[in-house]
């Protein structure tokens, strides 16, 4: 079975400092992986996706993620946090079933301190 594990339920950083949100996946083959962000009372917005074309994936708003097969990781990073980055972040994998539905991690709440 495929799944994702987000290692931190809460991360707090100061504005202007780097962000690291950790995600590990389990899959019997090369998965399709995504990071989504959810602001309060809003739907989910796609940040970036990995589809095996390149291991370093650049997304919107300065975020990027690196797929490391040897570590089964897909950590999300940003060099400098902005106050508007405060939100819930979900690491997501696509299941291989007919629906190809998304399987979400438990989420990481990012707090950005002034």
């Amino acid at each position, binding site marked *: 079975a495929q799944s994702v594990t987000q290692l931190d339920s809460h991360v707090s950083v100061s504005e202007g400092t780097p962000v690291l949100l950790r995600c590990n996946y389990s899959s019997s083959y090369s998965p*399709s992986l*995504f990071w*989504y962000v959810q602001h309060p*009372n*809003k*739907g*989910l*917005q*796609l940040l970036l*996706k990995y*589809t095996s074309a390149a291991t370093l994936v650049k997304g919107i708003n300065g975020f990027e993620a690196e797929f490391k097969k040897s570590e089964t990781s897909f950590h999300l990073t940003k060099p400098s946090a902005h106050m508007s980055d405060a939100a819930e972040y*979900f690491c997501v994998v*696509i299941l291989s*079933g*007919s*629906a*190809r*539905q*998304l*399987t*979400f*991690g*438990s*989420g990481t709440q990012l707090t950005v301190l002034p």
Partner: protein
Amino acid sequence: GAGVSQSPRYKVAKRGQDVALRCDPISGHVSLFWYQQALGQGPEFLTYFQNEAQLDKSGLPSDRFFAERPEGSVSTLKIQRTQQEDSAVYLCASSNRDRGDHQPQHFGDGTRLSIL
């Protein structure tokens, strides 16, 4: 429309009442998904449509949950005889490939359902 639209945004119902939640996907998107997001948790898959066909309903928690997409565009999620554990945010997503291969799902803002 420009994005996935869901209505109502908020719904309060008494236990035992029936509710209907609507989703307008992005025009032309073949695939439509419903997810349930309990408080403090990630969304969980409920059901999937390819055009008007409901190809997967394995995530529906009980036979009180019913979804339809009769013309392959707008979808309705219906919950009969609501229970308190049905309280959650219900998210709709659409994508523009029938199998969604690497195609991202675009989400609506959700309907927050509260059962009293």
